């Protein structure tokens, strides 16, 4: 983004806080084609490998007294299962594998981004928009496949007085189509903002007077960001469940 014009642009910081989000090819050069291995694809692949390591390899033995990795896997499974059941209802359980995949992938991508020197894949809109659009398309297709034209009743609020309903319908349609936008920007924006704040404090650490303070601030922000990483994954999944519930039971 603003990699050239350093110094004047950075306002005295030793590095630009947004430099950490630059996509670079892994093996040199600066031409990026769709097949070029970049730091984004590397860390996406690492996230997938970690999910497989925890959920497939870690729980392989299926012990009655679970090992440490198996307990973590079971905990995550139970957590997401209960969330789908509570929020989206019993008949949404057939979408549980999809929602579980989403949750595990986002959690691992966020947590791997917290590793120093790592690249945070979920800070890029290109990654989160794909996830959110997939949810949007799934919800729309499921809604129409399950309810037919009755799915449009989602926009026709029956509980409102009749003269108000056309106005509400317009608002509901707009809010329906803004969903993937806010869904994706919430995740990417939170993660990106947190990482940028940590980098800004890291820039202050170079100034001798404030460096002890900024080290404390980095530690505190890091703790907060670990929390935010999990909560944002949770929020992304729970909103997916809410949208699915709308598709399965469109009446208000």
């Amino acid at each position, binding site marked *: 983004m603003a990699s050239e014009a350093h110094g004047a642009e950075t306002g005295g910081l030793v590095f630009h806080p947004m430099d950490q989000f630059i996509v670079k090819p892994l093996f040199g050069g600066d031409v990026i084609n769709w097949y070029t291995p970049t730091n984004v694809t590397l860390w996406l692949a690492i996230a997938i490998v970690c999910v497989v390591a925890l959920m497939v390899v870690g729980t392989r033995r299926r012990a009655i007294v679970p090992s440490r990795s198996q307990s973590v896997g079971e905990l995550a499974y139970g957590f997401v299962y209960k969330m789908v059941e509570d929020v989206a209802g019993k008949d949404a359980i057939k979408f549980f594998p999809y929602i579980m995949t989403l949750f595990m992938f986002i959690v691992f991508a966020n947590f791997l981004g917290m590793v120093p020197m790592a690249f945070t894949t979920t800070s890029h809109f290109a990654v989160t928009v794909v996830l959110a659009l997939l949810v949007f398309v799934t919800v729309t297709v499921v809604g129409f496949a399950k309810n037919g034209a009755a799915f449009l009743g989602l926009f026709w609020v029956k509980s409102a007085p009749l003269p108000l309903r056309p106005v509400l319908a317009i608002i509901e349609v707009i809010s329906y189509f803004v969903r993937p936008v*806010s869904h994706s*920007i*919430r995740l990417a*924006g939170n993660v990106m*903002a947190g990482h940028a704040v940590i980098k800004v404090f890291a820039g202050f650490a170079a100034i001798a007077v404030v460096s002890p303070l900024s080290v404390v601030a980095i530690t505190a922000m890091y703790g907060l960001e670990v929390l935010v990483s999990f909560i944002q994954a949770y929020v992304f999944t729970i909103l997916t469940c*809410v949208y699915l519930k709308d598709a399965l039971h469109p009446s208000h």
Partner: protein
Amino acid sequence: MEGQLAHIGAGLAAIGSGAAAIGVGNVAGNFLAGALRNPSAAASQTATLFIGIAFAEALGIFSFLVALLLMFAV
């Protein structure tokens, strides 16, 4: 000149994050007030709490996005 105006606009967009902070505080504070009155019902409403926080926070993130666009895209 135009670039400097964009920077002022980015600073103004940061007001939005303060407004989002008020919204999130409202949600969490009201949840806590309700939860202390009826602690047995609180656990079942944490999902609603997070959904409410997420919706309030999203608009603050939008203002952050506007700030970023003004800084880097204009």
